């Protein structure tokens, strides 16, 4: 199971300290509002895929807007792989 905290940690790492420390990141946070580029979002997706040995639906991955959507996509991929 991939958690919001896990993905939020990856995002903070991806932004390499450029995010103000008091920035709240939760399920409703829009990745764009954090100033993430498409490449940075891709890096987070690729990292999750590699760490969890799964592959996300690319069409859904391209449409991800919020952290919650990304977590849901990741867990759907894990569930599909387990079946």
């Amino acid at each position, binding site marked *: 199971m991939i958690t919001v905290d896990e993905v939020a940690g990856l995002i903070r790492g991806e932004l390499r300290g450029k995010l*103000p420390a008091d920035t709240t990141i939760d399920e409703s946070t829009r990745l764009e*509002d954090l*100033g993430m580029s498409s*490449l940075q979002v891709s890096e987070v997706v*690729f990292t999750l895929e590699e760490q969890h040995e799964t592959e996300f639906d690319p*069409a859904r991955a391209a449409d991800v807007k919020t952290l919650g959507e990304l977590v849901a996509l990741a867990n759907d991929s894990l569930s599909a792989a387990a079946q």
Partner: protein
Amino acid sequence: VRDDARAFSRSLIEEILPASVASADAFEDAADARLFPEEEAVVARAVGSRRRQFATARACAHRALAELGVAAVPILPGEGGAPCWPPGVVGSITHTEGYRASAVAHANEVITLGIDAEPNARLPRGILGRIALEAERRQVREFTATDPSVCWDRLLFSAKESVYKAWFPLTRRRLGFEDAAVDLDRGRGGFAARLLVAGPEVEAETLWGFAGRWLATERLVITAIAVPSRGTHMPSVEPRL
């Protein structure tokens, strides 16, 4: 590779756009960049750096529209995050660290536009293998060995971003990194992208690819595609891929 991007009196990206395209750019965020209330709402919850980036990029879009003779209007993100332009206008926006730009044109002169700027820095480890076809990776290795002043892997990524930005308004469909084969022209600052999926019908012809141009400075790589509304849609450089 150019020494100093700021040496250009107008916009840097203008160098690689046809005369029918108006453009504006900025190398730092302006403190006085004004947004329309509708645009403000888009970044109401964004962190400060994102708000400044968005405001400067929109200011570039408004300036480019003015150069085109079109009154500034709110440029809001639409489907797929692509900016929505006034009727009769096509355009594109890009922003990366230290650079924001916008390009616009009349839709009766240019069918679609795609611009992208990236740092002239190597892609993070593992990304090239995810975004590039084998022939593209081979070309990146070859060009890197010949001319390391340009980060060819990043330039390839930028070209694919411009391809997507030019593709989406025509199709409203996703285009994966693997769905277009990009052939960079090292010496002449051009590139050709051959679609590996069915292209849209444009002016009664099937669009099978895009021709683009690129430039590199010490800090940036920039790519641009402008498909003219008349004449051939065939890339000027035949893809070798």
